[in-house]
């Protein structure tokens, strides 16, 4: 089962986990959640996420399919948000499950790493003084 969602509204991890536990007879589920964090030297007011809808959906689907091919996954859920977010708000959720933990962990890390460098989303940080487009970090 692959489920990809791109949405502005917040997601609820416990709801997503319920789906997994209902469907899944497997032994290992790994959950990664990325959230909006404050800046080091300034106060973040909002984080805006812009995206390229058609391509984003394609890239997330491909990423999940590749993870399926490479590791023994039974479920994969990817949710990515767009729009204006505040500190602490969830941005991205990746849930991978597999019969064994190693594969669930590896697949999850692969998905978030691939997504960060390939999925067409862009972040803009709005502080009290200015707005900055976030640049790619290694």
């Amino acid at each position, binding site marked *: 089962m692959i489920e990809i969602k791109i949405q502005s509204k917040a997601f609820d991890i416990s709801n997503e986990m319920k789906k997994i536990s209902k469907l899944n007879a497997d032994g290992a589920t790994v959950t990664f959640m990325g959230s909006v964090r404050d800046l080091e030297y300034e106060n973040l007011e909002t984080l805006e996420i812009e995206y390229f809808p058609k391509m984003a959906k394609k890239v997330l689907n491909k990423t999940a399919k590749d993870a399926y091919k490479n590791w023994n996954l039974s479920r994969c859920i990817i949710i990515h948000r767009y729009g204006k977010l505040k500190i602490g708000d969830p941005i991205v959720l990746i849930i991978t499950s597999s019969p064994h933990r190693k594969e669930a962990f590896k697949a999850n890390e692969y998905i978030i790493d691939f*997504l*960060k460098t390939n999925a067409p989303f*862009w*972040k803009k940080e709005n502080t009290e003084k200015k707005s900055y*487009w976030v640049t790619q970090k290694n």
Partner: protein
Amino acid sequence: MKLLYFAKIREVINKSEEILELPQNINTTGDLIKFLTELDDIYKNAFSDKNFFIACDEEVVEMDFLIKDTKEIAIFPPVTGG
């Protein structure tokens, strides 16, 4: 040709999309960028740092990609999702 711009590039060009009639001699994505930068300084500014990607019908391509069969070209800065 339908062109789409995102993030910082969209802001500099001040448009999220446009349809441009391209001359016959524009064969590759590289030709397109050269054409745009010569068309107006606004494009020159948008692409000056050479830090951008081009996607033809949602697939990222190199500068020598032939755009003959492409319907939509997106130009955007490095992605920062996740």
